[in-house]
């Protein structure tokens, strides 16, 4: 539709926002002003910031639930700023905190709604529904014909995620999807969703006000300040190691060095090789440094044996760990 212009994004960019702005009628200030960012294909980007910072408005401009006042939006190489919004939205998964399952439709009808709009035949829709329910950890035989109000909050949001994935959209927009769910279930849903993302590799834009959720989930995190100022857009490790300014530092809060340990894996620590010694704790290369350190503190030892992942065994000391943690400061992941 549009001619390739100098601003047409390269193929590895899935979402490009260019000078995006929103001012609501009757307001003297922009809700979002002149925001530009590129989100890469398959990337999990988290928007985080205090309420009123424009993160949700920005998210809702990507599928044009909010029409931008200025600027352009590209998705998958196409300028979608002026395309038919309903057709655009069928290609973009959308998950919200309040879930919004349609109460008079069964789980299968909710999940199958977008495929139905896309004109799929019934057999294909049924297969897709079962596949997706499996994917989000709900047994299709049990849940297919249930109604939303027969489900727990956690189950409803699994259905919400399945529904957003139904048309196999390349992009998912998630507005605090786990915000209204109890902490234990939320933690489990986050873990499951990360595993799911490893398989499906969608381009995800995820809004939260919880910095810990952002650090846990995001490949990159966009920290919004007042008036939609993009204070920093970087990996979790970069944000913890090298906060761009005092605002980011205070938003991330205390304990950055400790929290960094949760982002490092034992595999990231070089060296070792001393033969296993008595009294050492056993960990795997996949453990976070945080978990490994905790094991050492619990057993009162300064030594651990790392096994698994076919690398053979090696042993690391507390000192190796501390050096690695210090080195990680300022280095991108």
């Amino acid at each position: 539709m549009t001619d390739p212009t100098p601003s047409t994004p390269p193929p590895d960019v899935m979402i490009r926002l260019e000078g995006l702005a929103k001012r609501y009628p009757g307001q003297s200030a922009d809700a979002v002003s002149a925001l530009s960012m590129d989100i890469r294909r398959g990337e999990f980007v988290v928007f985080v910031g205090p309420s009123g910072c424009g993160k949700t408005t920005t998210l809702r401009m990507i599928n044009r639930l909010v029409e931008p006042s200025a600027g352009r939006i590209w998705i998958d190489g196409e300028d979608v700023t002026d395309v038919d919004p309903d057709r655009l939205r069928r290609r973009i998964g959308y998950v919200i905190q309040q879930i919004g399952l349609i109460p008079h439709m069964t789980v299968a009808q909710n999940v199958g709604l977008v495929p139905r709009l896309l004109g799929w035949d019934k057999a294909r829709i049924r297969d897709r529904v079962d596949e997706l329910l499996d994917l989000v950890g709900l047994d299709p035989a049990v849940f297919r014909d249930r109604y939303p109000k027969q489900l727990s909050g956690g189950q409803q949001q699994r259905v919400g995620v399945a529904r957003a994935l139904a048309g196999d959209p390349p992009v998912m927009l998630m507005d605090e999807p786990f915000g209204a769910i109890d902490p234990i279930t939320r933690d489990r849903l986050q873990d499951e969703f990360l595993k799911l993302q490893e398989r499906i590799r969608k381009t995800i834009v995820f809004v939260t006000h919880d910095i810990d959720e952002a650090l846990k989930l995001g490949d990159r995190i966009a920290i919004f300040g007042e008036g939609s100022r993009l204070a920093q857009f970087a990996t979790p490790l970069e944000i913890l190691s090298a906060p761009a300014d005092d605002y980011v530092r205070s938003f991330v809060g205390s304990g950055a060095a400790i929290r960094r340990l949760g982002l490092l894996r034992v595999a990231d620590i070089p060296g070792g090789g001393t033969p296993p010694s008595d009294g050492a704790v056993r960990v795997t290369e996949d453990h976070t440094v945080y978990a490994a350190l905790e094991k050492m503190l619990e057993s009162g030892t300064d030594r651990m044996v790392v096994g698994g992942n076919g690398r053979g065994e090696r042993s690391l000391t507390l000192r190796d760990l501390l050096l690695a943690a210090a080195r990680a400061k300022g280095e991108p992941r």
Partner: protein
Amino acid sequence: MSFLEYVDRNSDRIAFLTVQHVEVVLLSVAIAAVIGVGLGLATERAPRVRRALLAVTGTLLTIPSFALFGLLIPVLGLGLAPTVVTLTVYAVFPILRNTVTGLETVDPAVIDASRGMGLGSRQRLMLVRLPLAWPVILNGIRVATIMVVAIAAIGAAVRGPGLGELIFRGLSRIGGANAFNEAMSGVAGVVLVALTLDLLFVLIGRLTTPRGLHD
């Protein structure tokens, strides 16, 4: 003659008038339903017009029905026409009001999610909003029906069809032979029709409320 004897001897006439009564009520409510739901949908983007309509139709309810029937004689004459028009006028308000309420009380999160999935405004209305508003709209139709069953009896004042004829004739010659029985049979018929239609609506409600909305 006892009341039951009276009813027994005049059962043909009473039955005929009862059927007429039901017919004129259902006809009027059907027209009012089309108008009420239609106006409710048509004014979605015109909240001022909607408020004005609710005020006007609500005010019409305060006109005594006997007066309204009479006022329509110069325009519509006697018989079926003024009866149906009057009953329709009364039935529009509860249906319009419940249509508006039903649509307004649909969970905004459900609407937002539906928009976000790519349902256009028409699809949102047909697939999501109307089914969810339906139990409330139906209740408006039910209230309108019960109300109009009673008002229809007054229609006999303009020679309208239905059980009102028994009441008016009976009352006009009270003290005469079987006058009380005649009026009573009309009143009993109206009450019976109202109760029956009410039950019918409960049944329709059960059958047409989407399963996911049942408690």
